[in-house]
């Protein structure tokens, strides 16, 4: 249905093919969080890899930073309809985390957990093969607190609620288990190019 009088800004020009349907470009970096911003010091930070309830490996900040670092520049898309192009990140890709723990593919599904009790589910196929990282830097600087610092998940090809801030664990699960927003009406997978915003989209 055409909306009377609406023309749209259409400012994206030659970048239009990089913007999923219903998204608009932003230059700034909006912050959207369901609760207060946790204060996590790197000295206290720990990252745990689990298979079900079983802990496989725990890294402290220094141990985690000793893992191979990878840079990644990607477009990101928030379900609230903003997209941001060419965001530059540095961190540890999930493949390198699994390799350091000596595991390959214990199950097909992963739940990401955060210091504030947040969680989100991502299939392993969407984390592995260099698709996703635990990001420690953004635009050459340590990740800001309100963007998830000291460490967040980065799964740039899915809606950004999958890129859990203040990450403290990845947990392999037998089934695809819904996380925080997935239990509250958001899509179980969240592909921006298919506009999978809400449960039945």
């Amino acid at each position, binding site marked *: 249905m055409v*909306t009377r*009088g*609406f023309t749209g800004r259409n400012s994206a020009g030659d970048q239009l093919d990089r913007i999923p349907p219903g998204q*608009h470009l932003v230059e700034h970096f909006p912050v959207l969080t*369901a609760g*207060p911003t946790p204060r996590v010091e790197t000295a206290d930070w720990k990252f745990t890899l689990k298979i079900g309830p079983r802990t496989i490996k725990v890294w402290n900040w220094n141990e985690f930073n000793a893992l191979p670092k990878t840079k990644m520049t990607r477009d990101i898309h928030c379900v*609230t309809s903003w997209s941001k192009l060419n965001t530059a990140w540095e961190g540890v890709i999930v493949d390198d985390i699994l390799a350091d723990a000596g595991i390959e593919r214990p199950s097909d599904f992963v739940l990401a957990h955060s210091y504030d009790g947040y969680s989100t589910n991502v299939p392993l196929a969407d984390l592995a093969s260099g698709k996703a990282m635990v990001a420690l830097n953004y635009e050459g600087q340590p990740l800001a607190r309100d963007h998830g610092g000291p460490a967040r998940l980065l799964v740039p090809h899915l809606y950004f609620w999958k890129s859990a801030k203040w990450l403290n664990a990845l947990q392999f699960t037998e089934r695809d288990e819904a996380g925080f927003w997935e239990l509250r*009406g958001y899509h179980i997978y969240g592909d921006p190019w298919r506009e999978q915003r*809400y449960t039945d989209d």
Partner: protein
Amino acid sequence: MTEGGARPASWQTCTIARIIQQTPSIKSFFLRLNEPFVHVAGQHVDVRLTAPDGYVALRSYSIASSPSASNVIELAIERLPDGEVSPFFHDFAAVGDEIELRGPLGGHFLWPERSTAPVLLIGAGSGVVPLMAMIRQRRDLAQTAPTALLLSSRTRRDVLFADELLSLETADPTFKLALAITREAPVRACDFGRRIDNAMVAELIARLRHMPAHVFICGSNPFVEIAADGALMAGLDAAVIKTERYGG
């Protein structure tokens, strides 16, 4: 299972029934739904505008009206100077126009309907919109959970729903209102003439006379950061603090 009625609805067409200029920068749009729904105060709708060339713009707007209202919902939309959708609403949209929306959406920032525990609401500018739905639902259901609203605005003219909030406070001893006016001196003794800070949040909690069991904060990210830190410093548990931050 969801916390509330978060099951997403499909797109529907609604009609603009009434437009009211609320403040210099905010207008209320009353939309008559073709497919009426009952929402939970705090929920939002997604609005979809389509240009003749097929370009689609999507935005989320909190519902300001009480769920018990009718098949008309109220959205209070602030005109953002370099916006794309809000200038359309302010400058072009007219009574009788059809708008596409879906809702109700959102399963987290929800008024605890059955709770009688004290509630602290903190908003800035149009961030009062989902909080207003909560206050109106509380009034319509004759709920008496002690509730305080701290509302920050630039000037008194910018206070959204000012008349309704002031008369509600007069009528209901269990509802406390405090305005934080950042660019003018406050008129009432219970208001503040400065930007929000930790002490202000602590004072609101003291006026509630109980530690709130639910805190809802809505506004820009810097505002929400200060308000949430203030609530944490006042001894509240992070788990009771729900935030909504305006994105892009």
